[in-house]
């Protein structure tokens, strides 16, 4: 009985420390990726002075997506992801990873029904959620505009 209690104690503590470790990893990796994004914002603002803020933001997203895709393709991003968890999923590079990773994996099942279809396994829900919110918020703003 005592042994069992001891094992439970060890187990509970191990889980707790694992939990904390994953949080530290997620924080550190997510923070670093955001700093890389900030560096691109600063860089593009300087080298493209006549671009407005929204266009720079879009270009930064595309650059980060390129980097996320590239590091997924060479196999680095998924290795990082096994440590970083949320730190590699939530940044826009994680969105790129969620497109490229299944695209590469299902490529062997054919270009059309394998790669092209399966690349939306994770991206699909995001596109749907994004499009629906886009229409709903657009209609809300349009109706508000009618009364102003």
């Amino acid at each position, binding site marked *: 009985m005592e042994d069992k209690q001891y094992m439970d104690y060890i187990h509970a503590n191990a889980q707790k420390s694992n939990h904390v470790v994953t949080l530290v990893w997620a924080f550190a990796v997510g923070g670093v990726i955001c700093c890389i994004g900030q560096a691109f914002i600063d860089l593009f603002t300087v080298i493209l002075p006549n671009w407005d803020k929204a266009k720079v933001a879009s270009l930064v997203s595309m650059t980060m997506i390129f980097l996320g*895709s590239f590091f997924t393709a060479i196999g680095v991003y998924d290795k990082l992801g096994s440590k970083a968890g949320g730190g590699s999923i939530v940044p826009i590079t994680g969105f790129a990873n969620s497109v490229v990773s299944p695209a590469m994996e299902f490529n062997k099942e054919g270009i059309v029904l394998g790669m092209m279809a399966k690349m939306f396994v994770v991206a699909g829900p995001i596109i749907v959620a994004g499009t629906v919110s886009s229409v709903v918020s657009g*209609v809300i703003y349009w109706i508000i505009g009618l009364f102003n």
Partner: protein
Amino acid sequence: MEIFLGYVKAFAIGGLVCMIAQIFINKTKMTSARILVMFLLLGVFLELIGVFKYIENFAGAGITVPITGFGSTIVKGAKEGAKIGLFEAVTYGFRNMAGGLTAAIFFGFFFALIFRSHSKKA
């Protein structure tokens, strides 16, 4: 010094957002698709209630590089379009997604053609 402080803020808020995601992953075993949709909708919500721009002014890339930034640009587009007319109101949000989606789909296609999968299942 001010630029350096900007990076500290981006690191702190970006890290915090990812850490919150990790808490959800640890506690609920949510998959990455659910996490991404949840944070996208969080960005949409924060932009709709007008809080996002304050966080963005403070944290810069710390909130725009996570998928919350994607949600926010969608609503920004919808808001801009709504000033012109109903057609623009329902389409300009997607227009703001266009850059990111184009990049993701194009690079996804391109890299899947030239690189082999590294997954152990293959």
